[in-house]
């Protein structure tokens, strides 16, 4: 049974993923900035 709590969680997860990937593609990758963690690894592979 999908409750309102579940759908909120899905929506916020999507929102979080959308905002952070927007930042990484439009700012970090374009301006040659690295990052720590898994984002750093992804940027390393992206170069």
């Amino acid at each position, binding site marked *: 049974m999908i409750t309102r709590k579940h759908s909120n969680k899905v929506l916020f997860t999507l929102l*979080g993923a959308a905002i952070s990937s*927007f930042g990484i593609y439009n700012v970090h990758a374009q301006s040659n900035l690295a990052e720590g963690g898994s*984002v750093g690894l992804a940027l390393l592979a992206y170069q």
Partner: protein
Amino acid sequence: MLIFGKKFAIQSIFAAVSFAAFFRLYELFPPLLPNIAHLPLLAALLGGILLGSGEGILIQNRVASGFDSSLALVMEKRLSIPVSLWYIVTDTLILLASATYLPLRRLLYTLCTILVSNGTIALFGIRLKPLQAHGSSLFSLLFTPLRGLEMIWEQKIPTLYWHKDQSMASLLWTVEPLTDSLP
């Protein structure tokens, strides 16, 4: 994968897949923002705020935002390696690897963007534990590095955590935020 339960695994995989899907979607189009590579400090600030807001929303919803957080949690549970120490090790390795394609100056801006993104995450009101725990000040940590390292190891100073009501100065010393809201 199921060390922390099926629910956590499914949520984190969903977060990772949606992150990748959004990145692929953005890649189909030219960058939406003007190129600010010639203004690296502005880029570091903007990138940090965007990344921090996204990750802040994810962590607030108790979803591990990436592979490294999940791995750090597993290492702590299985090998008793403190999450903070694991983060310092992996982040240093990744930044050193990034040094192969980035000049030193860009790495300094990278440090700046990491501080900004961590600060933004903390602004989301996530409960993080203070750096100056157990009566130790930041200065004693700086001047006695070995003692500091020992305390980090013993997790008397959980470097990853920051308290909502703590000052901004100590926030800057947060290496990587990871909340106890995660399992």
